[in-house]
């Protein structure tokens, strides 16, 4: 599944990094601790978090993640947006809290046989 399909199916806001919307998704990871994501997220995962600072993008790029989803209507900081544009990793947004968003994401990826 591509990031753009995820955006469409779950009604996500695209804040930045549109050039990355055609990347494939291999799964998801939910965490607000960057060192944990660094250790455990896998390539092409979608990262679900409430953190909105630019160091999130540093980790997302290093780990080759396919997108970052900000939960509970959290808005990205300006420097996070700029970094996302530079790196081409999309920053997306949802109104849902992490638990509910992760449930929907899991169901969607599971139906597609991805997880």
């Amino acid at each position, binding site marked *: 599944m591509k990031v753009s399909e995820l955006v469409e199916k779950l009604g996500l806001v695209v804040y930045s990094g549109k050039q990355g919307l055609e990347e494939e998704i291999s799964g998801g990871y939910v965490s607000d*601790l*960057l*060192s944990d*994501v*660094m*250790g455990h997220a896998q390539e092409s995962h979608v990262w679900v978090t409430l*953190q*909105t*600072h630019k*160091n999130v993008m*540093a*980790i997302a790029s290093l780990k080759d993640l396919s997108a970052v989803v900000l939960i509970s209507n959290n808005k990205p*900081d300006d*420097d996070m947006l700029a970094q996302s544009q530079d790196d081409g990793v999309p920053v997306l947004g949802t109104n849902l809290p992490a638990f509910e968003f992760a449930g929907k994401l899991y169901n969607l990826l599971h139906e597609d046989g991805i997880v």
Partner: protein
Amino acid sequence: MELFKADLHTHTVLSPCGDLEMSPRNIVARASDKGLHILGITDHNSTRQCQVLQEAAKPYNLLVLTGAEVTSKEEAHCLAFFETHEQLAEFQLYLDEHLPNIPNDPDKFGYQVVVNLEDDILYQEERLLISAIDQNVNQISQKVRELNGLFIPAHVNRGRNSLIGQLGFVPFDLSFDALELSKHITYEQFIKKQSYLEGNTFIQSSDAHFIEDIGTAYTHFYMEEASFEEIRLALHNKQGRKVALAS
């Protein structure tokens, strides 16, 4: 140059996790007993106990460095110090503006009180001080810079509530005066894992929450005198001033 022993990370009764024995007069008496020359007062997200500490230290040969341990949006703890009462007051306004309005429950987290030299309660902080403020580490560093203060990410070796614990690394564009190690690690053990941080100034402090913890870790400062500007010079290894870890 003279040698000064500095423990730059101490909590008081104002921090919810600070023991009720951590009153200004107890703290300065203990710091003096332990042979410290410089003591940093760093309550969580508040500077409100600092001036009483300065008063309490007057009978002793002890410089009190006034500041706070700020919890950033990333939940990384950072020490900030200011030289004048005006700068400190300005930083307090910044903390008041950015601390979320979550009430403290003293039964669960502990009391948050400012006390005077006689241990009478002057003020009770209603908002929970261990919350994260809504500013990231770069924004906090910038604010400290504007007020000509000192900015030192706290216990960076720790797995939680530290820059490296929360982010996995020290951001390359973050401006700081030194990095602090907790007392649970030596510089050699730390730098083996984080070799990219070699060349920075490191301090070590006790992070005391109980009286007996004060001075259990400290840093040697080689300076002309114990003053804010001399400390800044030492942290930047300038004009012959320098710091060395005591462990």
